[in-house]
């Protein structure tokens, strides 16, 4: 089956590993900084991005032969914007608390460079099945990084790990009161955006170290 040959595997695994949209291409940083205060936000956000990326890639790839080159950006934007509106409405209907926490950042998926970038660079040049895999792969690559960042930010910044549920989130783990009594303190800096920058920088550092990529000076 075409879906599972080695080329397809590479399309999925590359963006997670050696061509990660956040840590290697450094795209989509703004939402990665904004929604990583809590793990549950990051999980829902990455699910939303995976959905939008995969569907926009498939739709645009299917109509790629009918799009006039000069208006392709407008068409891409309208497809992505409609998909984002669907996600936004779904969140408001079924996960109202989460939708309020994520606030504008769901809507801002439209402007996420990863979505536009993959549509432009991949979907308009490949068939729907490959475009689908590329969307899933890039979404997973994005999700992996923001969940890692949010894990450290929430654990050390707020002292909890929250998983998503229908309401305000299910607290999986929280640092025991006795620790606080013994003098432990949450690192307030990590709740602020500079803290996200620092954690993201460290994640990028470690991932590049693992892969062995060095940027040319």
């Amino acid at each position, binding site marked *: 089956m075409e879906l599972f040959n080695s080329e397809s595997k590479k399309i999925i695994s590359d963006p997670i590993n050696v061509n990660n949209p956040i840590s290697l291409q450094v795209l989509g940083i703004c939402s990665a900084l904004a929604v990583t205060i809590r793990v549950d936000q990051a999980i829902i956000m990455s699910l939303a991005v995976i959905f939008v990326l995969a569907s926009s890639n498939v739709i645009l790839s299917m109509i790629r032969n009918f799009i006039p080159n000069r208006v392709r950006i407008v068409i891409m934007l309208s497809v992505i914007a409609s998909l984002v509106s669907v996600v936004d409405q779904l969140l408001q209907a079924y996960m109202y608390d989460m939708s309020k926490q994520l606030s504008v950042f769901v809507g801002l998926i439209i402007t996420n460079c990863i979505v536009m970038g993959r549509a432009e660079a991949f979907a308009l040049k490949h068939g729907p099945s490959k475009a689908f895999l590329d969307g899933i792969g890039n979404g997973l690559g994005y999700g992996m990084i923001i969940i890692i960042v949010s894990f450290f930010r929430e654990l050390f910044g707020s002292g909890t790990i929250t998983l998503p549920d229908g309401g305000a989130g299910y607290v999986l783990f929280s640092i025991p009161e006795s620790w606080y009594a013994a*003098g432990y*303190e949450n*690192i*307030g*800096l*990590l709740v602020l955006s500079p803290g996200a920058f*620092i954690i993201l920088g460290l994640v990028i*550092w470690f991932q590049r170290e693992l892969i062995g990529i060095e940027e040319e000076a």
Partner: protein
Amino acid sequence: MKFLKNIFEKTGKLVEKGKPLSWAYPIWEAADTIFFSTDSQTKSGPHIRDNMDIKRTMFFVVIALIPCYIFGAYNIGYLYSNALNIDSSFIPSFLFGLKYVLPILITTFVAGAICELSFAIIRKHEVNEGFLVSCALIPLTLPPTVPLWQVFIGTAFGIIIGKEIFGGVGTNIFNPALTARAFMYFAFPTKMSGDKIWAIGVDGYSAATALSVPANPKNYDTASNLFSNITQFDFSNMNLFWGLIPGSIGETNKLLIILGGLFLIYCGIASWRIMLSSIVGLILTATILNLLAPFSTNAMLTITPLQHLLIGSFLFGIVFMATEPVTSSHTNRGRWIYGFFIGFLTVIIRSINPAYPEGVMLAILIMNMFAPLIDYYIIQSNIKMRLGRNA
């Protein structure tokens, strides 16, 4: 010395390339160069023959800091005995303060050494003594009550994020000691600001620093009047100078800082241009704000230039932090600009933003960021001038 030389020669063979202990070479090299000058020779130019290598330079800075440590420890004990109305003579006060200063100092050195050594071993560069100065500076910028584990994390952050990720000593953008302090300030605000942390007394003892008095006044008044209303501490200019007031460990006594600064200038380590121009910048800005004070209800605007000089860590910052050779400007004209803006920003942050009563730390970090840009334009304008002359 013969005995030491033998030890180093013998152990040196153990850490040569190819031996199982070769990973420990940076540690051996660091210990060796503390006692003996290096026997490696420069193969290409420029050939400068001078005993003042990085190690000696850093060592002089540490010497200049020692008086601040001694006074800092004494001041902790003095304020404590004042709060409890007990004997405040030098030796018992000093020993009392030492109980607080020494653990902080040891923690910073342990954290700094762990970070520096692990980077030296992984990246295979020599241990650079820059971390000794950073680690010697960090405790002086902290309040005496700071928890040690926070000191550890802050120091590690300063050494790794402030220095090592840029490539180690000589290539860093920000002053590592100030990076550590800024991290701790924003990460643990309750232990780094407020009026409960600057002096040790009985539980819940509160001691406001001089800067926080006009920053949170009960009624609007000029800063001098607000100071004279405080009976707990003597905030007269004279006592601000002598430093028997609450504050970070090393910054209260201005005389010792000035002496340290003169010592560094005499040794040719610190740039007098930076110190002088920051003082000029501070005085000018404070004078302008004084003129504007009648139009505002912000008591910080009424602080006179002299008080601005004596309050807080301004002198400590410009003598020991702003003049750091790596992160400051490298051109002489650039140093004037760099220093001037440190003075300017310090007063602006102190006076205009009530959230940060002290602005030296942020002012120096901001100007660290701009120092390469200043240098670039100074050099470009010099090139242009000389081109024009020969055209």
